[in-house]
């Protein structure tokens, strides 16, 4: 399909302070939108609640990593030192959970950390090579000192006029269209 007009990604509203962006977020949430987000230069305290976000699921990834790490460590050491090639040293047991603990503990932390980071990247759909917002001129300020609320056209409730009116009612500085 070829069209002359570019595909619209969404509407972007700009704010000067975190409080303004937060109140706007509350309004957008109440209006029942699903495909929208707030973009801030730093995590804003209370924004998750304002947006109605649930607790992040990163913890599960980290937990899984940690359990895998501990089990790997214990099983590996048992297999290497007590099963595959046992060597009797000083009459000590072939496998002792105490001597095997420090490496297993370190592996718990190692894989738990990888779990946390990879889980975070997975849930955030990162890394990504392209994002329509990153082409938008004013959006560069989202990592500087401005706050943006973006409602995507993907949202079933999106209507060019009504969504714009909603954003206008939040008292934002300006509203623009973002193209894909």
């Amino acid at each position, binding site marked *: 399909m070829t069209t002359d007009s570019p595909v619209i990604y969404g509407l972007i509203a700009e704010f000067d302070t975190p409080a303004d962006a937060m109140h706007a977020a509350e309004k957008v949430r109440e209006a029942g939108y699903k495909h929208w987000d707030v973009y801030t230069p730093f995590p804003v305290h209370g*924004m*998750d609640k304002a947006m109605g*976000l649930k607790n992040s699921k990163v*913890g599960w990834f980290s937990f899984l990593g940690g359990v895998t790490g501990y089990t790997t460590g214990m099983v590996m050491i048992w297999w290497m*030192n007590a099963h595959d090639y046992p060597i009797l040293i000083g009459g000590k047991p072939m496998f002792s959970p105490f001597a095997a603990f*420090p490496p297993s503990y370190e592996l718990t932390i190692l894989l738990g950390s*990888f779990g946390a980071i990879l889980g975070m990247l997975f849930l*955030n759909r990162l890394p990504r090579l392209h994002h329509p917002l*990153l082409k938008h001129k004013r959006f560069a300020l989202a990592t*500087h000192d401005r706050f943006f609320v973006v409602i995507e056209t993907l949202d079933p409730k999106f209507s060019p006029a009504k969504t714009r009116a909603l954003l206008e009612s939040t008292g934002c500085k300006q509203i623009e269209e973002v193209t894909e």
Partner: protein
Amino acid sequence: MADTLATPTAPPPSAPHGASAARHTPTLTLAPPPPELVRIPLVQNNHGPGWLSDTIAGIIEGKTPKWWWAAFIPSVMCLTLLLVMLTYLISTGVGVWGVTHPTMWGWAIVNFVWWIGIGHAGTLISAILFLLRQRWRTSINRAAEAMTIFAVMCAGIFPVVHIGRVWLGWWLLPLPNGNSIWPQFRSPLMWDVFAVSTYFTVSVLFWYVGLIPDLATMRDRAKTKIRQFLYGFFALGWTGSNRNWSNYEKAYLLLAGLSTPLVLSVHSIVSLDFSVSQVPGWHTTIFPPYFVAGAIFSGFGMVLTLVLPLRKLFRLEDVITVRHVDLMCKVTLATGSIVGYAYAMEFFIAWYSGNPYERYTFINRAFGPYGWAYWIMIACNVVVPQLFWFRKIRHHMIIVFILSIFVNIGMWFERFVIVVTSLHRDFIPSNWGYFKPTWVDICTYIGTFGLFFTFFLLFVRFLPLIAIAEVKGVTPQADPHTAAGGAKVGGHH
């Protein structure tokens, strides 16, 4: 306390109905606290988020300062010295170091423990202070984490080279050797391999995760194509979306939670290399906590040594304030005092144990042929930090800088005392000797400074040396519940 809080006023009966009224909280007016209790802001002169990214990113975007070259060139020369020394050692044999019977561990292990100890402040600042909600950490954590990574790199060189036949270093990995024998996991040296490599990996991950939002800032400010590409590549497409921040903050919290037991375990395991052996002076149960306290002490010493000049040279006095330095001095004082207590306790236990070898080791430590090293250690680690009790000294940047160097020296001597004095005279006098370093020892040690400073200077030149997004987050302008953050005080919306 109660009289400073005014009675909360009930919401006016005419409040509009609907969701915004449900969220409305009663107005709470606070009387201003007395002047001596007013908190000094973490960023001075009321600078906001925009100023912070301009200033901190401006350091990287501006011209390379002359002092940077003046520091970088000697660092690269020292790094070259390190490479030459390692080549000489590997091609000739580990005997070019002073390591010989009975002090087989020599400077290599002294330097290893010293460098890895320095690394501990980075993780302490980034993880433990994060969990303790010490928000002042944000101004120094990035530089301290970088310090950790480079210090662990320096540390890692020594044990690998010290094994003598470097090409067999892979025997330390959980792989079968030529006779299909697996490494022996009953040995603390194997634990150490896991601890140090995990520590390095997790430190790098933690540092990188913290960098992602700042790399995005650098990407969005970049003027040249190459900068745009490189910062953009490593920023992974970060947009600052709040849905992303939510996962990001959780991951960061988890990493802090995982790094805290990690940092405590790493130096504990390093200390087990010593205390699991039978050597008098090493075989003590106090070692793990004592090593951890010493590591934090030396790490903070090094953070002060690095941060004070950076603060001055980059004019970051408003971000790394006197209060930050003051707090770091207090941590140094606290950990230095713990270390002093540990020294005293070691002596007490040596006497109380009734073990003649143990008693001899400690008397020999203080009054034997290496007594001079012992007293340098006591002076630098126990006496010098006590000066930090005085506010005047904590607030005098030049004095703090000089004292921090003493801390670094003292902690090197502590490791020297532990390694060398314990080994040089153990059970049988026919086994005794006097250890001396060779010129190769000294040049290798100097060389590691080259490695450390080369990387550190490249870091301050190309990456934001202060966590921009995090410092923005602790300013009043970032708090949506204050007037500076845009809150309409007392009103509703």
